[in-house]
């Protein structure tokens, strides 16, 4: 049921209309200088990158089992049923574990502010709730970015690869990366040449910490009983020794 974006690098002409639309929607400044910046930041939540004659696009991947949502100590991130991963700035304490943990290196911080927030794309959650497509896919003049049901997007991506095997690198980025994402990428070249992180596990990351964290109740309960037992035995032994010692003293 969840939605996803499909970005097809082979259709992208690098016009950066998506960047402009995104800045407009977040009411962020956008000018030639910002357009030149090639990395995600607190004032740039999506970036069109240039790699030789190919273009790439960076933004939040909206993981199906988001790492940011699992690591946040106050639960500021939420994976919505529609697909987008949202961020509640009112909860955030600024520990930046989300930035550290994100396998795609997406969340950015307002380093210059004394009341800073994390910045990342929310896949236009408010627009999606109203049944509209994201601002970037609406703005895209070539159809390089489209949005719709995730399964439909996967089917569309597979169809494009099947119809033009020579034109595509035969994989869909986001199908399995970090357990799958609600942002899918197609490209002519391997994805690391488009600036995407490689060596990512094909499974969701949150279980890596949950496997250990879920032991906490057991360690706490079994440990307390065990230590309590040791405490009782050692002190009891001491008390017995003392009592016997006193008897000895009485005899003398």
């Amino acid at each position, binding site marked *: 049921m969840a939605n996803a974006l499909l970005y097809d690098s082979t259709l992208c002409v690098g016009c950066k209309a998506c960047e402009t639309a995104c800045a407009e929607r977040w009411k962020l400044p956008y000018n030639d200088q910002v357009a030149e910046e090639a990395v995600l930041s607190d004032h740039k939540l999506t970036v069109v990158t240039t790699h030789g004659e190919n273009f790439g696009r960076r933004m939040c991947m909206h993981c199906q089992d988001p790492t940011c949502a699992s*690591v946040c*100590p*106050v639960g500021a991130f939420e994976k919505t049923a529609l697909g987008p991963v949202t961020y509640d700035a009112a909860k955030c304490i600024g520990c930046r574990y989300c930035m550290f943990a994100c396998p795609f*290196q997406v969340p950015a*911080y307002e380093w*210059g502010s*004394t009341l*800073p927030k994390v910045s990342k794309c929310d896949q236009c959650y408010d627009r999606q709730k109203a049944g509209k497509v994201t601002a970037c896919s609406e703005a895209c003049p070539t159809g390089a970015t489209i949005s719709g049901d995730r399964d439909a997007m996967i089917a569309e991506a597979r169809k494009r690869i099947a119809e033009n095997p020579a034109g595509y690198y035969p994989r869909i980025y986001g199908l399995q990366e970090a357990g799958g994402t609600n942002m899918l990428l197609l490209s002519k070249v391997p994805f690391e040449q488009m600036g995407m992180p490689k060596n990512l596990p094909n499974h969701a990351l949150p279980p890596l910490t949950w496997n250990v964290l879920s032991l906490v109740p057991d360690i706490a309960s079994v440990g307390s009983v065990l230590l309590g037992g040791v405490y009782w035995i050692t002190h009891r032994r001491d008390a017995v020794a003392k009592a016997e010692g006193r008897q000895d003293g009485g005899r003398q």
Partner: protein
Amino acid sequence: MTTAALPMPRAVAFWRRIPVWRLVFYAIMSAALYATYLRLFHGLGSATNLSNEFPWGIWIGFDVLCGVGLAAGGFTLVAIVHIFHIERYKPVLRPAILTAFLGYVLVVVALMLDLGRPDRIWHPLVMWNPRSVMFEVAWCVMLYNTVLALEFAPALFERMQWRRPLRIVQAISAPLVIVGVILSTLHQSSLGSLYLIVPSKLHPLWYSPLLPLLFYVSAISVGLAMTIFESWHSAKAFGKQLEWPLLMSLGRLLAVVLGVFLVMRFMDLSRRHVLGAMLEPRPEVYLFYLEIALMLIPVVVLFSGAVADRPRLLYFCAVSAILGFITHRLNVSVTGIQAMTGASYVPRWTEIAITLGLIAAGFAIFRTAAKYLPVFEHPVEAEVREST
């Protein structure tokens, strides 16, 4: 018991007259205060070299990760003395608890400066996410701080002769020590679990599913090393005799725990088939060797028996173990991350100033507390003897 004061070498006498350490202390504290001002009023961007690519610097890697570890002597000795009831270690128990308490208070100060919104540090109390390691660490550190305050409180109550509060704290001592050891076990290992979430961002020489266990064991080792370290310095500073046989046996314990750590470390590297990474001539690999060497040297020296009757050698073993521990944690939190992500990060002077300021404050408060409170005496035993 007190030894006659040895004739002071002339060089020492000269330096004693110039308050050089006092000057260093004030210089560090002024720099730290100015850095704190920059941090609070101009934001993390102007006070640190942190970036979106490298969001955790030495305030996390050193102040928090190493600070919590260096404070592990508190729970280690509480377990030895109170739970396993090996009473001969009692003379070093209170200094260890004081170190732990100060360590944790300073860790919280560092955390407050590192958090983007320190005014919201209480949020984890009411906004829960039990799936988060950070959530668990936040709760454990907060609860354990309370436990440590109560464990150290008797020193204050004895000094003030507050008998009622003293009796109350003593009455709840058994559950207190057990809860303290459990909380420590949980969050010392959880500091390692924090890094389980970055399999693609941490160098394979350090990323391991065993990180929680490795952090726990290394914390115990450095807790013992810190106890030897501070006993040595306290003996010097307060003209007290060294508790030599006691420190020797702590040293043997240190060798065993460090040995266990190293065996685990290499078995893990071998099981994950990454021993080959040790042969690559890269800067992070050299730091790996430094880390291993600093931990291996004390093990070899302590097991060789060379330390018998040579307190200075034991002291150097402890220092080496402490430095090895710090190198390991900085390799996990800084070097190992940089090696994989290519992120550039060198701490800004402000980050270093605040770190040094916290260390200096720790030394100064420890000294003051040891001077005015019964930290190095054993009045509890005396009281027991009187009452029987």
